[in-house]
């Protein structure tokens, strides 16, 4: 058997680790966020988009996080399937609502960013549409988790769904890009790498790291909450029996 990563099999060690790691990530997130915002707002307006480019600093990190969190969800689900550790399942269960939150943020800020230029609240842009479908995947995961009462079965069913989703997401993204090329070529967002002047790139990078650190902190605290919940239920069970 492949030896499970140490902190996975031992909740005690995870609780000790997360006790100091969560606040640390929170602090990092705050520092990077403030720095990113300061640099972002002191940069000149974009010659084309004008001031709305500022929205990019919170849209792109959110969109990136929505995919990053699904990656974490898929990895946690894979570990939960292979090693059957409750901690891996707790991590997956804790990641889903956060992922949905970041995806919602990406959609709202994306719509607000596209609105001044395109005059409509929703733009069927390839990236935005992919994020919308990703949001549906998160809802499906959370719905399945809510509908199954038996913890052990819910863990495996949700893990299978997360992996089916992970396999399907690249196909979904490709099909949306293909669909986009079929109907209208234009894309709202040019914020992809080198084409962007460095004065925007640095704040964007800082904000992305800040968002990831924030997710790290939230995830660890949420997993701690999960561990406490399962301990409380186990204790309630023991109390009921004795």
């Amino acid at each position, binding site marked *: 058997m492949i030896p499970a990563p140490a902190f996975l099999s031992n909740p005690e060690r995870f609780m000790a680790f997360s006790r100091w790691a969560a606040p640390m990530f929170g602090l990092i997130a705050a520092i990077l966020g403030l720095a990113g915002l300061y640099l972002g707002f002191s940069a000149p307006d974009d010659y084309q988009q004008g001031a709305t480019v500022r929205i990019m600093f919170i849209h792109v990190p959110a969109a990136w996080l929505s995919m990053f969190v699904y990656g974490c969800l898929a990895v946690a689900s894979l570990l939960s399937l292979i090693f059957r550790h409750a901690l891996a399942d707790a991590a997956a269960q804790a990641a889903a609502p956060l992922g949905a939150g970041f995806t919602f943020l990406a959609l709202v800020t994306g719509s607000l960013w596209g609105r001044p230029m395109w005059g409509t609240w929703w733009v069927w842009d390839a990236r935005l549409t992919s994020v919308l479908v990703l949001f549906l995947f998160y809802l499906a995961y959370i719905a399945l988790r809510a509908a199954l009462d*038996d913890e*052990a079965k819910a863990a495996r069913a949700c893990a299978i769904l997360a992996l089916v989703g992970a396999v399907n997401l690249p196909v979904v993204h490709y099909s949306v890009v293909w669909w986009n090329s079929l109907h209208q070529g234009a894309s709202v967002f040019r914020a992809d790498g080198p084409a962007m002047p460095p004065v925007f790139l640095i704040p964007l990078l800082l904000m992305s790291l800040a968002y990831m650190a924030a997710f790290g902190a939230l995830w660890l605290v949420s997993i701690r909450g999960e561990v406490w919940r399962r301990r409380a239920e186990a204790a309630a069970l023991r109390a009921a029996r004795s």
Partner: protein
Amino acid sequence: MLKLRPGRWAGVITALQLRGVAVSRGGRRLFSGLDLDLAPGEVCALTGANGAGKTSLLRTIAGLSAPDMGDIGFGGADPGDARQGGLHLLGHLDGLKAARTTREELTFWSRWGGAASDGADQAVTALALGGLLDLEVRRLSAGQRRRLALARLLAAPRPLWLLDEPLSPLDAAWRARFGAVMQAHLAGGGMILAAVHDPLPIPARSLALEAAA
């Protein structure tokens, strides 16, 4: 009397050995440290209060769920093969579809069990299902429906029978008659583990399941 072909399945399962088996359901431990040895020709009655885990134990032996601890041996046979062709599981729910006829269900389940061509006919004679073949399952009485479920055991002979309260819907006459069928199965080298509330029609040692301490 039904003549079973003894020893035809000798290679599949030659014994059932439980060592320190612990089973839990829905996160609750039902029992632990269970040992059992069943040799060909032996029958064991599994007793215990409702919820003690009789059904869960049978499903665990059948491989539908995994035990918490301990191991389940089939006399050297590979557990995977043993569970795919060496045992019959008869649960409370018989998996019969109300709208299909007795004949359709019997032919499908005997073919699914890998029965020889005359396997189904043998079962029909042994359990007197001849008159019911063209009736839809929903028209059968509880006793007749249970006999149809029991017919599956005979149509595709397999060494190990895991029965979950097999005789409860049957009347006294049919209990005795099925007792004879069980005797024939044992005489042919078969093994039976039956979860029961009232005693089996044939002499059998019993194993009681107590709730975990």
